[in-house]
């Protein structure tokens, strides 16, 4: 057990530099993916709410389709098949777009759920007091809805961060690819993959805790079975 941990100080300066660089790329990649997911997800949520006859079915089938396909298939398709159509994406951008597409389906459901959770009367009374529909949304609906949306949105980001590890398989220089490179050089895969797990954990766990704390704060308690 002791000898296991003695390996870390020996290689630390080399490993930490490379893993931190990878972690930075992973953070950027997941944030870019989340930003794309947020924009596209908002559009999809809006399309699902719109009175247009064809927007809603298009949005719903897009979401269903995305949710029926593994992220890895999406990433490989973006990275390897788009060049034959004359569009070559770097591993980073194929990854970010794949994460964004996948994430948008989840974000859209979160936004729609958050809006649906509000009573219809909120909007009606806002309109009745003379607010325009846009004002009703920005001043009345959104501030209330965001409370319910924030915890699941944080969870969606954590998912995207974890999923960004799959971008290693399309040769994006992120944390997991750095870890694999080190593992194959040093022949210490156990050390490396524990360490890289810890890297992800250190970013993801506080966000998960925050999401849970917000959820508790925003919801009212109910007497349930415990202990």
């Amino acid at each position, binding site marked *: 057990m002791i000898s296991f941990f003695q390996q870390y100080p020996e290689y630390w300066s080399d490993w930490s530099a490379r893993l931190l660089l990878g972690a930075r790329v992973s953070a950027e990649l997941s944030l870019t993916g989340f930003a794309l997911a947020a924009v596209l997800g908002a559009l999809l949520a809006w399309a699902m709410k719109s009175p247009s006859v064809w927007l809603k079915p298009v949005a719903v089938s897009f979401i269903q389709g995305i949710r029926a396909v593994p992220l890895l298939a999406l990433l490989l398709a973006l990275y390897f098949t788009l060049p034959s159509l004359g569009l070559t994406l770097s591993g980073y951008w194929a990854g970010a777009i794949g994460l964004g597409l996948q994430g948008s389906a989840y974000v859209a459901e979160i936004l729609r759920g958050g809006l649906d959770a509000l009573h219809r009367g909120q909007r009606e009374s806002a309109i009745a007091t003379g607010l325009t529909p846009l004002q009703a949304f920005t001043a009345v609906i959104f501030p209330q809805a965001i409370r319910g949306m924030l915890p699941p949105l944080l969870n969606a980001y954590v998912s995207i961060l974890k999923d960004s590890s799959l971008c290693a398989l399309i040769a994006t220089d992120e944390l997991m690819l750095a870890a694999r490179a080190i593992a194959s050089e040093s022949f210490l895969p156990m*050390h490396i993959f524990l360490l890289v797990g810890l890297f992800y954990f250190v970013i993801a766990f506080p966000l998960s805790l925050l999401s849970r704390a917000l959820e508790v704060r925003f919801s009212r308690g109910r007497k349930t079975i415990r202990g």
Partner: protein
Amino acid sequence: MANLDAFLGLLPLLLKGAMNALEIALCTLVLASVGGLVLAVLLTFSRSHLVHGAIACFVEWMRNVPALAHLFLIYFGLSYLGINLPAWLAAIVGLSLVGSAVLADIFRAGLQSLHVGQHEAGQAVGLSRMQTLRYILLPQALRVALPAYANYVTQLIKDTSIASAIAVPEIMFLARNLVTSTFQTSLIYLAVMCIYAAMILPIGVGFIRLERHLGAAR
């Protein structure tokens, strides 16, 4: 029409991959369901801080680290301890550990959504704790947990694709091999997506039917 012939030529191998993926998913589902249920019951009824702490550590570690890292750790890492698992077994073990953590949360939420009176009433009519759990609490809790469970099952089928990274011959792995040997890139990935959709969409519909059926029985 050349494309159609090429497409039909690729299908048998990809379908074999799909069968392998489904086998892995099924083994994982059984192990993860048992594991998740045990953890959820312990979390709900154990008063020991040690049990709660240990389960919380396990669940948080499993849920906040990518599945790919778990698979690499099990497949490549365990050889440090002299344990060399075949790739398919490493995939099942890894996905089952992650699944136990996910399902523990889902089942726990189901159990804790029940009113405390359900448990007290079971005890009051003379049922043992196990009987209360088996006949009163679990049937209700599992019904509450069903939508989340359905989500997990579809996610699991998609996650079997990650096993391709440790060379398990499932759809994604066979597809990548086919791409390097035939160069039919777009055709193969299109076929792969269709196969996944063909596995996942019916399961989603099945669970929605089951929910309705159970809801109607209420």
